[in-house]
């Protein structure tokens, strides 16, 4: 048995073989992207999102003959609901699995023993997953864009593009939250559980709570708007609606208040809320992961 063939002896190099900071991130991003698109969750979510998006585009425009092209706003509203339900779930669970999964399988230790820093590993995974998510969204929006083209014509390409843009922002914001959850969890199942809880909270509980409190405590409009804008999902929704209608009057007194007081700054304020939800959890995740004393 001489399975081990002799390797040519090479001079011991003293030069560092560590990849550059960005190079290392890129390596991990690529691997994460590759793993993600090959995984079942990616296929499942992409399929679900695409089917639902196409379904919404199709159904909301059916039975209206040539009047369909007026319906983009309504279609967008339907898509909005769908996006708010599916995209955070997708991004949160994807993020939650990222670090905790590797930790649980024991692969994280092996990766960290390579010539890379913890920050590189984390950011690489983040960007890889973000790219995979955006790909998934591109597929869904691309196909439902085709349905819109067929049923409704090209009215609202700008709005559609903005809808996609804000959806992308929402996705990476929720991914940040998911990664933060993942960094703090020892086990993948725990991380997924917390992510689902976060999803439930952001999607339903906070809105219902805010509704209840505005009924019970007779909150003033500025209070309701302020509290709602803290929720990334509401920020996302308001940003898309401002973009579609040039004002938030559709959202009743609270929306009118926001449009009047903030005016042209309104989309920026809402975008800032989403950006903060992207940057802050990610930064926190980096700090916690880098400072963590165990694997």
């Amino acid at each position, binding site marked *: 048995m001489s399975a081990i063939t002799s390797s040519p002896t090479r001079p011991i190099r003293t030069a560092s073989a560590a990849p550059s900071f960005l190079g290392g991130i890129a390596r991990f991003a690529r691997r994460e992207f590759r793993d993600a698109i090959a995984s079942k969750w990616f296929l499942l979510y992409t399929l679900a999102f695409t089917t639902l998006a196409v379904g919404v585009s199709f159904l909301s425009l059916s039975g209206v003959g*040539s009047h369909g092209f007026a319906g983009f706003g*309504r279609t967008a509203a339907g898509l909005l609901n769908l996006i708010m*339900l599916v995209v955070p779930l997708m991004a949160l669970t994807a993020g939650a699995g990222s670090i905790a999964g590797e930790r649980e399988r024991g692969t994280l230790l092996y990766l960290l023993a390579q010539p890379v820093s913890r920050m590189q590993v984390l950011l690489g995974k983040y960007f890889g997953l973000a790219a995979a998510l955006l790909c998934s969204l591109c597929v869904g929006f691309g196909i439902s864009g085709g349905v819109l083209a067929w049923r409704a014509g090209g009215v609202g390409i700008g709005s559609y593009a903005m809808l996609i843009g804000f959806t992308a922002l929402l996705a990476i914001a929720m991914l940040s939250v998911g990664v933060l959850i993942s960094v703090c969890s020892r086990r993948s199942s725990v991380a997924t559980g917390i992510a689902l809880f976060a999803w439930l909270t952001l999607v339903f509980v906070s809105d219902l709570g805010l*509704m209840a409190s505005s009924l019970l405590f007779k909150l003033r409009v500025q209070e309701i708007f302020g509290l709602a804008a803290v929720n990334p999902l509401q920020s996302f929704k308001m940003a898309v609606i401002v973009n579609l209608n040039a004002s938030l009057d559709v959202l009743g007194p609270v929306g009118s208040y926001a449009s009047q007081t903030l005016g042209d700054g309104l989309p920026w304020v809402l975008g800032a809320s989403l950006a903060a939800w992207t940057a802050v959890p990610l930064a926190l995740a980096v700090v916690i992961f880098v400072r963590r004393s165990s694997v």
Partner: protein
Amino acid sequence: MRSTHLLILIWILIAPHVVFGGAGAAQAESISFVESLIERATDGQEVRVPAGVYEGNLVIRKPIVLDGSDGAVFDALGKGIVIEVLAAGVTIRGCVIRGSGSDVTGEPAGIRVVAPNTIIESNTIQDALFGIDLRESPDSIIRGNTISGKDLDPGRRGDGIRLWWSHYCVIENNTVRGSRDMVFWYSEGLIIRRNTVIDSRYGLHFMYSHDTVLEENDLLSNSVGVYLMYSNSITLRGNRMRNNRGASGYGIGLKDCDDITITGNALLANRVGVYLDNSPSSIDSTGIFESNMIAFNEIGLLATPNTHDNVFTRNAFVENEEPAATHGRGRLVSNSFALDGVGNYWSDYAGFDLDGDGIGDVVYEPQSLFGAMLAREPNLRLFVHSPAQQAIEFTARALPELRPQSTLIDPSPLVSAPKIELAIADAKLGGARMGIFGAILLSIAAACIAAMGIERGLPQTRTGTRS
């Protein structure tokens, strides 16, 4: 005598070309030149104004045809009325009219008419506080004009076209943009067809004007599409009200109007499709709504609780955020949502049609808990289009005791949408662009996957394990 007449006529027709042909459009002329041309014209004669910009205010006092289609521009330089018609039987055609005063006192207009039998056609009116203002000018025709208002705050704008005590007029093929209203006061027996009103306040606005037909008008992106007030016996047929989403944002608003017939219209993506405020107001009157497409509005039908005796049949209520709602508390049950056993199509109808007669076997009664909550606390409208809203509706569906009373009952809902097509040409442009956009998105995804996702591992080598 006759020969002199003939000579003058020839002179009028030819002289401008010969004598003033080189004046050029850019050169400013005095309005007195046009006045002198009119002076020389006889009644009923055509006055062809040569190309040029004529500055000042023109008053027409005899029945002539003023034709500016050679490139005549009338500019009042921001003072008063541009052209005022005092004589009956005047025609103004092909002129560019601009620069009326902008102070609302005196109501300066592009064209003001105070005499009957006037024809105003194919003019372009720009930068005028009021576009065309007919006062006690019955039997007039306003046709094919393009009117755009002054660039002012919506509150300070004037009307694009206004009729005041002017019966039996025809208003057709006009386009009004960025003004206040196309408004009709105390004017009866009008024919209003194929007009387009965009980016204004009320597309078509009726005050105390009866017995009129509105056909195939296109009202787009105004505050309100058609607003009828205190006007009776009006028929709306084949009009389109799209994207009217201003402060009130009605596709059609009716206030205290009797005997209204609304058929074959498309009310699309307005804030409210149809708004009924105490219409009909008389006890023995009926409002008819038949075969209208009411789609993509925030609220399909909104009515004050006292609204009664409207009949809705064969309408398509498609994908409205709320199909029907009451303005305030109450229900719409004093109206009927079926005629001779034929109701309306409601896209949120969840019933079935076992006998296959096209009529659903269970009644349609929308019960929106969220809608009921909105009626109580308007601030909650912030949460529309959110999963939380869906959750509330879902809960109400699961728990019958939470269900609010339905706003209306359609006893025989249609199971498929009736086909309602308009004569108005659809500008269905850009489908290809959207298709390309979708394709671009897909290729981005494909490119991403190709660039990053394809495994480029080590190839399988032949050597294999040696043992």
